[in-house]
């Protein structure tokens, strides 16, 4: 089983090498003439105002939260899905309960308007 991952290992190395290779070639070919205008932060031509702080909306974090919850849920469901044919019907009931509880969370967020975009 471990031998399967030799291929993956090699692939990872090659995958890492490829961008470096590409950038290396580009680094060789491209001209380098930096000047202040070019290196200024592009802001539709305007001078950038203040630092790159943007008012962080909690909303982004909440979506991430819900994603985490459902992501973990998915992790639990994968083994279940694979082993589903070997366990009885009650497994479905258990998963149904499992999903139900989580959807309560989702419904709560939904009703509370956490999903709504202020």
């Amino acid at each position, binding site marked *: *089983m*471990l031998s399967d*991952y030799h291929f*993956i*290992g090699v692939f990872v190395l090659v995958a890492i090498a490829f961008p470096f290779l590409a950038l290396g070639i580009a680094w060789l070919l491209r001209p380098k003439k930096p000047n202040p205008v070019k290196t200024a932060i592009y802001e539709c031509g305007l001078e950038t105002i203040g*630092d790159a*702080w943007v008012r*962080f909306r*909690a909303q*982004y*974090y*909440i979506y*991430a*939260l*819900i*994603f*985490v*919850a459902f*992501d*973990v*849920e*998915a*992790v*639990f469901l*994968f*083994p*279940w*899905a*694979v*082993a*589903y044919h*070997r*366990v009885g019907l*009650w*497994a479905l009931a*258990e*998963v149904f*309960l*499992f*999903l139900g*509880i*989580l959807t*309560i*969370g*989702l419904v*709560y*967020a939904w009703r*509370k308007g*956490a999903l709504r975009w*202020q």
Partner: protein
Amino acid sequence: MNVSQGVFILLSAVVLIGAAGVVLHRNLFRAALFLILSFVGVSGLYILLEAELLAMVQLLLYVGAIAILIVFAIMVSRQLMSPQFRDRNEQWVGGLLVAVVLFAVLAFILLQVNWPTAEAAVPEDAIAQLGQALVEGDQFVLPFEVASVLLMVALVGAVIIAREK
């Protein structure tokens, strides 16, 4: 010193260096990246331990969910992270001391104890077995359900806390 031991050393080096980076690095964002690096390293270790489902779960959850949350949090409170002042409080010496001594003691213990290890090949349908274990009535169905409750509660709690009134 066969191949996998070599790979093990490589991976553990990646993990430990990543961890060191997390702990020592002044810039919090860089620390977060090192954290992600160590997570990937740990995932590699799992593959070495032939727990491939766990490796993928590690990747999916830690790198895909938790790391993102951390980065989000860093971005939220980012403007304070002026790199110049040392991100270390006054009790760091004590912490370091405790950590080192703890490591020494743990290492000592671990080397002392002879663990009941046994050579065995991981069964083909390990993942299916795990799935069955998670759902089977007499095995881990309770933690399975409690995990969902935990998630729901965490979700609701976090939503309440994070929501802007």
